[in-house]
């Protein structure tokens, strides 16, 4: 699923490890999200949205829209 996660992380100068810790997931999970190798669960998508204080659809492109 296309997303702006890498961009948002770069804006804050966070490493994948730091973002993973903030979200409660592994660095591998962050990397998989950024490289579109993992579609997040609704729970994780909302955690990401809350962390970056943006709506989910602002971060993840809705493939069904």
């Amino acid at each position, binding site marked *: 699923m296309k997303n702006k996660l890498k961009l948002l992380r770069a804006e804050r100068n966070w490493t994948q490890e730091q973002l993973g810790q903030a979200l*409660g*997931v*592994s*660095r*591998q*999970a962050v990397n*998989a*999200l950024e490289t579109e*190798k*993992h*579609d*997040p*669960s609704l729970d*994780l998508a909302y955690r990401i949205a809350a962390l970056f204080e943006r709506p989910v659809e602002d971060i993840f492109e809705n493939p069904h829209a």
Partner: protein
Amino acid sequence: MLTLSKQHTPAGRRYVLRTFAFMIPYALICVAMMTTDAFDELMGKPAGWALAAAVAAPVVGQLWATLALMRESDEFVRMVTAKQFIIASGLAMAAATFWGFGESFAGAPHLPAWLIYPLFWAAFGLVAPFIRSSN
């Protein structure tokens, strides 16, 4: 299941330790059975079943360790681990089925059924590096 850098997370490190804890006794018993006559006197006796159970127990333990890894990991690691396990199990079962019917109908030489577990790990080692996506 040491791929996907599992050793980089606390859950992964626990999994690696548990794997060694189960693999070492399994390997020691197998090597002892194949290279020594230490267990020969158990053949045909009820104690032989106890020996068989002793070798099977670490296999069950490894199944628990894998489920524990999935329970203690994030959703990505959980899904990738499940995919790796399912594909490796399927390949091992397919190979065992192929060989079993080969024995029955094509005159293939008999191979012991316990080889399915090493076969599973061989399949796991082959496929795991290529399974990096949960999609």
